């Protein structure tokens, strides 16, 4: 198996992990129609079940708790969101200091392999359903850290991303637009990254173990 990081040709996509890609997932930076993982295989539900799901999704979308875990430099763009200028609490979005009470995980910019371990642990401690917002170019293709030896380049290989916000760095307005996008998708029932993660846990685990050398996590850290 080829090593993902430390290659001399990072633009060469053959250097990405070569494990079998599950259906509905994307092996590298997703294209437009691939942005939402596993949404094409959902069976049609009965009417009552559908109505209940709509109500549940409305509640979930109207009360997002963001895990306050600034992983990269983009965390500085999160602070203005709670101040009077941008004020994300208008949309029911608040910060939650503990993963047990949060729904949204914002990966803010680059993610070193050392932080990835903690990010995975935090992500798995969040109760379902949960969503990941990838902020900045570094989470899409490595950004300015494209040839760094200890940052990951494509976040989607290690965690199911629901919304990408591009830019280096995106402005808080872009972040608010991303939240709007996420809320719309939750209401439509299309933000199912968490479900995809549970279904394809082994695939994600293999990718994670390729970059984390000192793996000492349990197989799923509830």
């Amino acid at each position, binding site marked *: 198996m080829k090593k993902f990081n430390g290659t001399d040709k990072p633009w060469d996509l053959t250097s990405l992990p070569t494990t079998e890609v599950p259906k509905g997932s994307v092996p590298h930076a997703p294209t437009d129609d691939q942005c939402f993982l596993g949404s094409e295989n959902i069976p049609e539900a009965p009417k009552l079940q559908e109505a209940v799901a709509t109500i*549940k999704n409305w509640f979930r979308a109207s009360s997002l708790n963001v895990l306050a875990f600034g992983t990269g430099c983009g965390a500085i763009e999160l602070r203005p969101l709670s101040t009077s200028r941008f*004020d994300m609490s*208008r949309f029911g979005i608040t910060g939650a200091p*503990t993963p*047990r009470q949060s729904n949204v995980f914002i990966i803010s910019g680059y993610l070193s392999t050392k932080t990835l371990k903690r990010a995975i642990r935090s992500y798995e401690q969040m*109760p379902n359903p949960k969503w990941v917002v990838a902020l900045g170019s570094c989470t899409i293709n490595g950004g300015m850290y494209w040839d760094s030896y200890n940052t990951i380049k494509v976040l989607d290989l290690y965690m199911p991303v629901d919304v990408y916000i591009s830019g280096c760095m995106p402005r808080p307005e872009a972040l608010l637009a991303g939240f709007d996008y996420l809320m719309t998708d939750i209401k439509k029932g299309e933000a199912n990254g968490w479900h995809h993660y549970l279904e394809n846990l082994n695939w994600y685990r293999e990718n994670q173990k390729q970059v984390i050398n000192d793996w000492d996590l349990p197989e799923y850290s*509830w």
Partner: protein
Amino acid sequence: MMELLPKIGWTMLSLFVAINYGFIINGVIRKVMARIQGRFGPPLWQPYIDIGKLLFQRNSVSHGIMFWLGPVFRSVGGIGVFLLIPVVVGEPRLAGFSDTGDLLLVLYFMAFGSLGMALGAGEGGHPHSPIGISRGLSQMTAYELPFVLSLIAVVAHAGSFDINAIIASQQGGVLHWNMFANPFAFVAAFIALLGMNMYAPFNIVGAPTEIPVGPATEYQNTYFSLMMIGRAAFAIAKMVLYINLFLGGASSILDAVIKIFVIYFWTVFVGAVFPRFRTEQSVQFFLRWPTAFGVAGVALTFWVR
């Protein structure tokens, strides 16, 4: 049994109204704090949305039976206090079960929720939980001193531990209220209320940016929403107790609503402008001036008699 059923019905109804009023007050607090900080703030019904969202999520982790019993004890403490306090003067349908217990039982119930929560949260294993618990309990022992001193003054003035008798002793005009009859006890009790409601400067239990969330760090979803419900009931119950002890009780439901709102927002507005105390500063604060006011209140009662 048959005469008990309508009483249970009325009590459940008043409890339902009280919990909803607690949620609405929570929404207003978020809005008011947002306006003070120059923001728009969340909608008034945001607490309901939060509760709904929490109920629609799954619990994914357990730390044992005692861990789950913590929020149950917490909400039982809040609801139990509310059941033992009459809400409106001379209205037996809204008096709950206040004829079966007196002020001493209410005091025990008020400590019951915090102690049960301490037992449950300690099981969570997160280091913030025991830190928050030790802070909260040390602050509790500190603010209970002026609070109980002011209660002694009120009880000695009325000559009874029965809350209905304490209300009856304050009837006959605004100047008969314990607020004016014994201003020292009033000041001591209302400073103790700041510590009880745990807004700044006494928010050392779930101190934001320090030990955020505090004891409830490991709690999630349905049990967390149970804690929110218990907290809403407890907040209203405390305010009703203060009305009965110092503001002469409420003559109507509207009167109760207005008085609860005014007393509650006294602690919110203090919280909006002050930074946070450290634990030992908070304990020392309660043991100085509020305790002195409490002693003066007791002395005043016995001197007037």
